[in-house]
């Protein structure tokens, strides 16, 4: 048992690292220099140009409408996909029979092109938000399921036995035996998941929405307005960075503090 130095007892949340706080400056600096070297505002706009576009879009309100619309879709699809995906993944990971029958379907849906699912959802359900979110969820569920299934397979049988012997309730087992072990898988499914979902939402918005970051990015791409494309892409990335540092990482630190304390 390794016991790296650390305070005894369980400590709480900690702060955002200075490295993360420095990142925006570092990033903009690198970008500024690179853009200067490239010297082509059309294909490689400088951060100043893009910043101005972001400001202009924000002032007109368009930015918030589109980022908001995309965020709402991402959030809805994320919640659905994680819930359903985790359930399927855990079930398949713990039950060989289910896994044997479900596995080819999982592989099938995992490799179904987003485009096809999206088109079919739009055609069958209609050009509605429900269709968009369903399409994204269908794309994402198999991935979450695959990741959680791997997690479920690695569950410590010793702890499982312990929970059985002491007749822990299903809820307690889930909360105190299963989820802590799955936390790393959950974190990577969540993180990779949001990223994937947002990529799919872009396609969804390309194919059938009149709002959203994806809609804007593709519209500006038609005009080859790289600055505006980057402005929208960046706005969303900023939102995701905020989510990462204000929600995901504190949660993760909290969930894994036993590892660093032990």
């Amino acid at each position, binding site marked *: 048992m390794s016991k790296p130095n650390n305070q005894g007892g369980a400590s709480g949340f900690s702060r955002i690292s200075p490295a993360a706080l420095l990142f925006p400056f570092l990033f903009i600096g690198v970008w500024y220099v690179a853009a200067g070297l490239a010297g082509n505002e*059309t*294909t490689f706009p400088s951060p100043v140009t893009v910043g101005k576009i972001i400001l202009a879009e924000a002032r007109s309100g368009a930015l918030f409408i589109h980022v908001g619309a995309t965020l709402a879709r991402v959030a809805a699809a994320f919640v659905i996909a994680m819930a359903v995906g985790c359930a399927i993944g855990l079930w398949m990971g713990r039950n060989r029979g289910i896994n044997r029958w479900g596995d080819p379907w999982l592989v099938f849906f995992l490799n179904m092109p987003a485009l096809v699912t999206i*088109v079919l959802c*739009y*055609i069958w359900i*209609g*050009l509605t938000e429900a269709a968009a979110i369903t399409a994204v969820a269908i794309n994402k569920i198999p991935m979450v399921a695959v990741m959680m299934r791997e997690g479920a397979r690695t569950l410590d049988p010793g702890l499982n036995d312990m929970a059985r012997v002491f007749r822990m309730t299903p809820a307690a087992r889930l909360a105190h035996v299963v989820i802590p072990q799955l936390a790393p898988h959950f974190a990577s499914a969540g993180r990779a998941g949001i990223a994937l979902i947002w990529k799919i939402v872009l396609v969804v*918005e*390309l*194919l*059938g*929405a*009149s709002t959203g970051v*994806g*809609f*804007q*990015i*593709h*519209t500006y*791409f*038609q*005009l*080859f*307005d790289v600055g505006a494309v980057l402005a929208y892409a960046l706005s969303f990335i900023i939102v995701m960075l905020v989510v990462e540092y204000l929600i995901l990482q504190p949660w993760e630190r909290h969930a894994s503090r036993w590892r660093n304390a032990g």
Partner: protein
Amino acid sequence: SPIRGPIQAADPDPIRIAVLKFGTVNWELDTILHNGLDKANGFTLEVKPLAGSAAAKIAFEGGEADILVSDWIWVARRRATGADLVFLPYSKSVGGVMVAGNSPAQTLADLKHSKIAIAGGPLDKSWLILQAYALKNGMDLKTSTEQVFGAPPLLHQKALTGEFGGIVNFWHYLARLEAKGFRTLVSVNDAARDLGLDPDIPLLGYVMKGDFVREHADRVRGFAAASRAAKKILEEDDTAWERLRPIMKAEDDAAFEKLKAGFRAGIPDGQAVDPDAAARFFNLMAQLGGEQLVGTATTLPDGVFVDVGGW
């Protein structure tokens, strides 16, 4: 309450159209809306802006839009499989193959062994006509050049940096290239004429479902009239263009002028499409594009071109 305002006249029935947010159709649609041509012709125009042509097709197939902008070859293909779609001409603008201003190429033959960018993919109609034209003049364009397919804006940008020997793109991209000093090596109109085809057949148009046309003949007729009226304004009135300038996204005056000229050149003459000429055109397309392009239609099916009377 005792005081009531005047009873609001209900809006006339809608026509929903799915278009690219910054597509050229918007210029006409915007003119219709701005001048109230829709209400004047007994319908309310609802424009659904979308981010891609695929999106427009989905909206149309999914019943979210009544009208879609596409070409009549596709309508014919779909009709052959039993889909009841009809076509109302909108524009005869087509492109051609363009080369950089300083390119030594003078004829298609000079493009031998060079890269040609084709935005519409291997089934692009301009590309097919150019191939037929080259073949007639003793050159197999497909084998003697290297084709690069890709997204239109990307190819446009790459053409500007001189990556291709020639480029075939949608007319509004080509108009922008022209403003940048590119020149047309062979225009599709010339090629078509050389092949004995009628270059005045509008390739692009408004696509509607047959049911819709039959059930709402008035509205469709009104739409056709509004389209006609908008075109007339755009043909004659330069100030109308000044108003459109923001949505045209022209990078400079030269491009603006080229786009204006291109649009005007593409306005159809208003004559009904000659079925024989269309059939000949279709046959050539079937021959060049094969089943991949025309599907099961070997000859032009009946009823592709809608007759709205007074067109």
